[in-house]
């Protein structure tokens, strides 16, 4: 619980102590932001607290639930365990950057809507980012068992797994044009 208190202050640094602050450029959803952060700030907190991108969620804060999943150069990663500084120079994609600029939903977003693949919605952004990464990954097979295995790091406490699986398979068919 002590962690939650600490994390709430992330990004609000003591203005009198600037010794360890680092200035970095983060490219998020195609836009480059210059941020000055403590080196111990993880990407999830930088996104949420500094860039107001609150789509990625803080569930467990220890890489155990997947709610914070974002794409780094197209690959899903747990942003709660990734130091923001280490993401410098890479393309960061969050749920806010998944749809087209004209508002057309990404196939995975459309499929989640059509298949009612969520209940409370807290894990949904992480689920969709992981699914996007998996559908783009040639090394991961797309049969139901392989998709379930590949998505097992994204926990849904509501238990919407069946519809999530349906949505991911449906999005796969859409993307493949089948």
């Amino acid at each position, binding site marked *: 619980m002590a962690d939650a208190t600490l994390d709430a202050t992330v990004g609000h640094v003591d203005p009198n102590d600037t010794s360890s602050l680092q200035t970095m450029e983060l490219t998020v959803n195609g836009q480059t932001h210059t941020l000055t952060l403590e080196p*111990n700030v993880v990407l999830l907190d930088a996104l949420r607290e500094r860039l107001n991108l609150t789509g990625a969620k803080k569930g467990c804060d*220890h890489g155990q639930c997947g709610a914070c999943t974002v794409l780094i150069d197209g*690959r899903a*990663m*747990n942003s709660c365990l*990734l130091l923001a500084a280490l993401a410098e120079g890479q393309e960061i994609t969050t749920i806010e950057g998944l749809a087209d600029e004209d508002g057309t939903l990404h196939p995975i977003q459309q499929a989640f809507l059509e298949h009612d693949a969520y209940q409370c919605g807290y894990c949904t952004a992480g689920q969709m980012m*992981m699914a996007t990464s*998996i559908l783009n990954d040639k090394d991961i097979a797309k049969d139901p068992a392989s998709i379930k295995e590949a998505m*097992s790091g994204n926990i849904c406490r509501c238990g919407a797994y069946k519809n999530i699986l349906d949505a991911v398979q449906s999005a796969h068919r859409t993307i493949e044009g089948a």
Partner: protein
Amino acid sequence: MQSFELIRPESVKDAIGAQSERSAYIGGGTTLVDLMKLGVMQPDHVVDTNRLGLDEIEVLDDGRLKIGARVSNSRLATDARVERDYPVLSQALLSGASTGLRNMATTAGNVMQRTRCPYFRDPAKPCNKREPGTGCSAMDGINRNHAVLGTSEHCIATHPSDMCVAMAAIGATVVVEGRKGTREIPFEDFHLLPGDHPEREHDLRSDELITHVVLDAPLEGAVSTYLKLRDRASYEFALASCAAIVTLEGTKVTAARIALGGVATKPWRAVDAEAALVGEDATAKMFEQVALLAFQRAIPLEHNAFKVELGQQAIARALRDAVQQASQGEHQ
């Protein structure tokens, strides 16, 4: 999380120069950032390895496979040469963690992965590994997930890695670089038994950095499998796991490599079981017999005695599954 200074060297030499008693290297950060948030690891300096290269996989002239320290667990698992020559390593990697964590985690980071012992992970609890001399909370605590092999009166923490179990079976060398030059450490000597000093987990000096892991050349014609037994079918640490590699001539075993995870304080090579199997017929009964040998010196505690039988079953089943591939003509 405690603050630290982040140092981002561009060369191995500078990385080694930046290292001190109070620093830690970071690769993907999946262990280190987690443990820094818990206050279990509190380095003053974090030395980033992400600008050092060390991300190639190459076949050496002698047939060995040289893996850069920064190659991610995902990439290593799906590398065509690993899938072809070391499928047991690919299976072990893919059975560990989650897609997101495997995309972040590095080869050297996995070698340096730290125990999941809940008492180690809780700074409020006595733990000889975290704070030498404070005692072991697991010994008389909830020790269901703890080790039965390689333990001492000071520590019973299980080594958590799947990758390392496969590497122990394959045979490997950890290549490290320090101020005094390069050293090659046999994989079985890299991780240390807890003994009287559970805080010392590996044979790495404070200035040294892992640059590569080199796998022994694959055994010709071998069949293999990685079997992982756990509380749920995915995204969970092993209660018992076994990497088995065997070669056969007709029905006779000509070579055997058996390594265990989830049951020991380090990636565990079951050498007695291996020796007993060579020259014998590859039958289910023989596999069960040699499996018993692997646990002859096991020290079960209140909640983890089931791991003795589970570990024996893991060996017998892994050997059976591997040999079954041979009869189906699917070589390693």
